[in-house]
């Protein structure tokens, strides 16, 4: 299940296509900027109160997309959002985002093993490559695995930890080297491709923040998933659009 405001962006102004397959790509209009017809709301039902800080909008959009009501994206209706100004606030926000996704995932998909790989290499203005590979298999319990560069990065980290255990110098060197170079590569790619930066924002800080936020999101989703019986390893930070 990919929540999907970024596809809205790709489509531009107009009706948002509703996917037939509830497991796959879903539209998302965040509640900070969404208008709903009262009649539609009465039919679809109100927000899910389980979602305390986030996720209720995704849930509502999915339910709405299942009915005959149309969803419309209007990019000219602009709202400016003030982001959190403290690191703690930001971490909490991302942890919160992760926290409620598994719940919605469980609510709207059948039991399956879902592995999603999505790589999107974009430059400003137009995207060169966009791959979604999605695998959904029937499975005794919910399992969601969203493969992104972030995971690839951490495979190397785990590898080097293993190397410490088995005391292999070469493996440790290789693992750490790969980890660092991946880090540099992925964050550098995102950094240099997107940005209109202010001067005091440094790349190292940028990539560090990015990394930490990814962890916050993954951990949030993982722990929340465990509580309701889903193994969820996901991160959506990496697949977001650029520029």
């Amino acid at each position, binding site marked *: 299940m990919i929540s999907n405001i970024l596809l809205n962006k790709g489509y531009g102004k107009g009706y948002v296509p509703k996917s037939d397959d509830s497991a796959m790509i879903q539209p*998302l209009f965040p509640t900070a*900027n969404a208008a709903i017809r009262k009649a539609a709301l009465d039919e679809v039902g109100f927000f899910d109160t389980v979602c305390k*800080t986030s996720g209720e909008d995704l849930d509502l959009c999915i339910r709405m997309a299942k009915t005959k009501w*149309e969803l419309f994206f*209007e990019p000219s209706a602009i*709202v*400016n959002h003030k*982001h959190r100004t403290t690191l703690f606030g930001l971490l909490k926000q991302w942890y919160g985002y992760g926290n409620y996704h598994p719940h919605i995932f469980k609510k709207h998909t059948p039991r399956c093993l879902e592995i999603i790989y999505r790589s999107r290499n974009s430059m400003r203005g137009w995207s060169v490559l966009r791959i979604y590979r999605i695998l959904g298999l029937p499975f005794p319990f919910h399992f969601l695995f969203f493969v992104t560069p972030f995971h690839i990065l951490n495979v190397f980290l785990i590898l080097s930890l293993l190397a410490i255990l088995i005391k292999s110098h070469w493996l440790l060197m290789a693992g750490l080297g790969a980890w660092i170079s991946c880090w540099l590569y992925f964050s550098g790619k995102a950094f240099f491709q997107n940005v209109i930066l202010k001067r005091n924002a440094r790349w190292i800080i940028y990539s560090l923040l990015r990394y930490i936020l990814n962890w916050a999101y993954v951990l949030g989703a993982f722990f929340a998933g465990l509580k309701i019986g889903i193994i969820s390893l996901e991160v959506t930070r990496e697949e*977001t659009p650029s520029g």
Partner: protein
Amino acid sequence: MQLMLKRIIQNFVVKTNYWPFTRFYQAYYTLMLKIIIRRLKKHPEIAAIYLIASSAAGDSIYGLSDIDLIIIVKDNNPETKWKVAGVYKKLSRFIPILKYDEMGVYGIEEVRRCYRQTDLYLKYKFFTECKKRGKLLYGSDILSEFNELADIQRNEFILGQLAFTWAIFLKNFLNGHKTDNPLLQKYLCYKVTSDTCKAFISTVNNQELFNRKEALERAAEQLDGARKRHVEKIRALAKSGFTMPAPTLLSDTYAFCVRMIETTVEQMPHIRESSVEKQIHTRIDFDFENLDFIVSDDNRRKMQAVVALVREKYREEVRSVLVSPFDLLHNDPLDEENICLFIVPQRPLSLEAIMEFNAVIGENSSPQQLYLYMLTTDMAISLNRFDPGLIHSALFPLEWMDVVLLYLSNRSSVLLGQPLEYDKTRKLVKNYFSQELLDWVSQHEKIVRKPISDQELIRWPAIEFQGFFWHALRLKLLEASRNSERMFIPLSSKQVCRQCRKLTELNSPWLEEFHEEYEKDLNGVPSHSEAYFMQAIALLKKIYNLDAGASQQDTAIIKRLRISVIIPTFNRAEILKEALSSLVLQTRIPDEVVIVDNNSSDNTKEVAEGFKHRLNIRYVLERTQGTSTARNTGIRNASGDIVVFFDDDCVAEKEWLHYLEAPFLRDPSIGMVGGEILACRVKGTLVEDYCIADALLRVGMR
């Protein structure tokens, strides 16, 4: 993915200023064509394949125009055509350059019949082009059996082409849809100018030119004075690879082209009683079997269903049906999947009848893909917007139908039934203006747009009405000036507006304000034109001596939606203040603002109360923590037809609510509208900087 490669290459060309176009693209294009032909050759039913590199033929600029493949099959059997189209469709999946609608499949007999019988085909359809500059890629040349075109037809054909370039140019680049790319603007100047030159040369010298450069050079030789200078400027522009600073403004080119075309028309006397009338009165009986394949399969079926329904159920009421994949009223090309139906009934239908009709049609198609307009003949004609800046000339009669036909022919759509009829004499005011029409306008306003399930759908007042209004005034002015010594013909609505001051019966103080609103409407800016509707109708009735006793229920139809904005908040009084201030500044003020206090401990309540005199605030306290609970409470307390969710840490742009509301008014099947969320650019901490720098961090990404 389909056209991505093509688009990338085009982008590349535009961005890198590498002009004229690359050989690479031509090579790529040729290679792709070879692959297609090799594959299609295997099909035994195919008699011939023609390639039409449409307006780019002979030019070095290859990529920015489309290609057309015409495949001619041996028998007229639809199944064969489907098969061939299927092959092509499969190919187009792998070859990005091919677009599905760039191919036509025709049977031999069909070609012959169309070619011989119809003027319309002669002028607009592919076969003439096949004949003239199509390239036979495979098979025997079927078209060789036809005679050469007469000179007159040939000239008309060239001018017809020209008018199309023009229509697009004017529509898109003079009427508010200006492209940001200066290079593209220059290219358009170049294209339009050189096309005009082409037409000029071929008229004066009776010689055909396909090459734009050559046309420019020839024209520069033959012209004199200001025109020559203009052409030379454009020529220099083309030579410099479009890099020099813009020597021409769009309006400059526009004025120039108008003059050029006038000269061209003078050179060609027979054009003056041009064949517009002839075209429009030409009747074509189309069977569904003969529908072009350029329309996608689904749409074809859908259209068949709708038209069959119309024929069956509304045989007596409907005069003709036009189908176009181009949304004329909004000047937008629709997606490939969408179609647009214009239905012209014999007489004005009542609102109930239209609604019933829409309901019946609605059952047979999804509202998302079918746009339907119900028009009277008069309305259809006046639909041509009376734009500021457009002019009326003999060659380019801006009759609505003419533009429709142009689009129909070039946007690969199909005419079903007969085309519209209209009377040239309608230019006389009396014929043009009927009591019936005006009544209809004042009762139901002008256009009723498809998915009607309740009245709120009606856009009011539509731009078309305003165009109609100015046109009516213009006709009145013309009539008045006919009696005076000096005849002044206003060309744009602005001129009309100014002229009205001089005539006592038309002089009204609000006219100028109304015109300002009209311009805003044309540019897509929110306006208050509805305030003038009643006055406009009254004025029309006055100047055309119409009975004032007609329906007074205009106001009953105006139904606005009530908007409730719901803001859940928790201990953020300061930020909430800013959010509320941005709501106060909206161009469309919300009817109600519900502030749900999620058990805050600060002065949230005071802040909310503070805005009471500026907004219709409703303060609700919700003890249970959680945004969704708070929002649900908000929904329960909201009284509007539309609930808008907003956050306390957001600041809305001025026209935010206006844009959110618009889709709901347009289509009652829309349940939810979402907008864009951007990051606030304020000075802040490192984290804040990070957030802004990282454009990835949109709130929506979860």
